[in-house]
């Protein structure tokens, strides 16, 4: 027998809503947009935090990077272009960071050379980086094949090199470059390893053209021996000579907490020992925190939009339900006269509101799943839709229905049956 079962009541509510299709659909728009912004927001937020964590992994969140920066021309240039301008980080700076800074586990020096790289008739001008074996561990760059520079290479000044992926592909497109004698500047170096491509942050594909010059790695000690301290740059006709001992010092910290301390110590040390502003200190963690802050603001804006549209949607639903209750005063009177208890009337209208808001919620979930796809496509931001997001959205929309349906339902239930029956 059909008693006042929930299913029967839901069907009843559905039928009533179908009587006013357009009105019902319009009513749900607020909830629809609210719910879709909730889902989109969660997806974008989730994607952003995932991205941030990946950035931390890639950059090495525990690294503090000290870099040589060429000071403004007028400060450096003594006079003629033939003179040697000397600036930047020194081996002494490296020693200080590596040996005296508390919180630093190890510090990797990097020297960058301007040298032509050649294999047979193939020529490239990549970044030639002279560094130490720990470089790959500190920067977390994986090997594609072979090995990286070893301690033995350093001690024995061996003529070996490790190629970046793109360089290897360019110099030896059809075979492995391992064992090949690569000409760097005027000297030959045996290729002992190839690194995996450096993936631009936040994407899975190497950005086109990002690494055309690529990277080649040499043992620091070998490089010092063969290339000396002074580099000659040919720029727009004039010979420019620079003396830069180290281009980068990558300091790996013992913990995340140590990062700001090491950064501060580095800045202080450099400020004391350098007469000119020929350095910069880059802290990936700080950059990440800034990026996360931006994303946090983004999330706040989105959640405000979501909250406002849910509120507006809820009020819209309440408004329509109040109108419905007034419109159906007579029906309420009839039902009460025929034996409906107050709770039956409350349930009936509440179910109707909840059906309405859940309907809007479901449409909102559908739209909310489309938005992240669009955001990925056009804004090139990563989004992740977790299974909890649609569930949460569903619960929210049902909640909206209950919260904003309660008052109209209560009004309906507390009508005087006699008055309600007399209503036209």
């Amino acid at each position, binding site marked *: *027998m*059909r*008693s006042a079962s929930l299913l029967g009541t839901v069907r009843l509510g559905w*039928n009533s809503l179908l009587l006013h299709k357009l009105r019902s659909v319009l009513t749900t728009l607020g909830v629809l947009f609210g719910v879709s912004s909730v889902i989109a927001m969660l997806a974008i937020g989730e994607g952003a935090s995932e991205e941030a964590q990946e950035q931390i992994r890639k950059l090495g969140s525990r690294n503090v990077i000290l870099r040589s920066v060429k000071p403004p021309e007028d400060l450096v240039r003594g006079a003629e272009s033939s003179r040697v301008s000397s600036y930047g980080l020194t081996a002494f700076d490296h020693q200080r960071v590596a040996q005296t800074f508390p919180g630093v586990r190890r510090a990797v020096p990097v020297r960058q050379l301007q040298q032509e790289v050649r294999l047979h008739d193939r020529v490239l001008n990549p970044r030639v980086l002279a560094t130490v074996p720990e470089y790959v561990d500190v920067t977390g760059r994986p090997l594609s094949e072979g090995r990286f520079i070893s301690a033995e290479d350093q001690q024995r000044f061996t003529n070996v090199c490790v190629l970046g992926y793109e360089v290897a592909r360019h110099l030896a497109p059809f075979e492995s470059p391992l064992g090949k004698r690569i000409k760097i500047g005027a000297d030959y170096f045996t290729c002992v390893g190839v690194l995996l491509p450096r993936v631009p942050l936040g994407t899975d594909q190497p950005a086109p053209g990002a690494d055309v010059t690529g990277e080649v790695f040499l043992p620091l000690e070998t490089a010092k021996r063969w290339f000396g301290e002074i580099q000659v740059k040919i720029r727009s006709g004039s010979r420019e000579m620079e003396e830069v001992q180290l281009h980068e010092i990558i300091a790996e910290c013992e913990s995340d907490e140590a990062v700001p301390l090491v950064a501060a110590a580095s800045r202080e040390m450099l400020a004391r020992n350098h007469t000119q502003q020929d350095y910069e200190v880059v802290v990936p963690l700080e950059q990440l925190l800034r990026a996360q802050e931006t994303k946090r603001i983004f999330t706040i804006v989105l959640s405000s939009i979501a909250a406002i549209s849910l509120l507006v949607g809820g009020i819209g639903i309440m408004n329509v339900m109040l109108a419905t209750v007034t419109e159906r005063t007579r029906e309420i009177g*009839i039902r*009460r006269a*025929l*034996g409906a*208890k107050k709770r039956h009337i409350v349930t009936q209208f509440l179910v109707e509101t909840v059906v309405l808001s859940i309907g809007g919620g479901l449409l909102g979930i559908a739209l909310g799943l489309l938005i992240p796809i669009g955001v990925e496509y056009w804004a090139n931001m990563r989004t992740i839709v977790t299974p909890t997001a649609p569930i949460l959205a569903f619960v929210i929309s049902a909640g909206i229905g209950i919260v904003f349906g309660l008052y109209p339902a209560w009004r309906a239930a507390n009508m005087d049956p*006699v008055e309600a029956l007399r209503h036209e």
Partner: protein
Amino acid sequence: MSGPEPVAELRDVTRVYRMGSHEVRALDGLSFTFRKGEYWSIMGSSGSGKSTLLNLLGCIDRATSGSYKVRGQEVGGLDDDELSELRSREIGFVFQSYNLIPQLDVLENILVPLFYQDDPPADGEERARMLAERVGLGARLGHRPMELSGGQQQRVAIARALVNDPAIVLADEATGNLDSKTALEILALFDELHAEGKTILLVTHEAKIGERAERTLRLRDGRIDEVVENRAGLTAAGGGA
């Protein structure tokens, strides 16, 4: 006065409407007993208290003072839920404007009173189908009220009023919206129901309709003016109890 069991007993019932400082005594110390199987018409001029009486009898309104018992149960002390349950079990309403629920079909409309019972009978749907058949709408169970004529709608309403096997059927100007031919058909249906032993109260302002009932209770200013035995009613129904 003894006879069949009383189904509705009013003792010194007063219903006062207060409008600001102004008071209207719609029912003024009314005492009366309706018994099982009786067919009454309630008449009186406009404002004499007919509707007020019917609302009280139907438990959708409460007396200001006095006692009202349905099948021996005092109604005065019941809370809203208990009163609603009582309506769904003991009262059958037939309204002037049919008052079917537009979004429900015929069968569902007939079932509404059972829908709201705490413990609905298992054979409710069967009963509803039988009653639809009984009022001549067995072939229209799936129709919406909009698709029915006034007379057909009122038949559905009568079936609905009977589905819970109520102590008393209350009809307020049940033929007021119908043309005279259809009205006569509905009245004939009431006659049949009376013959089957149902207890019926029919409020009307038309003397011709009132006379069809077994007896007429005439109100004036919220009091009983007179009680009339109707020959025609007796003849039509083939005698009372």
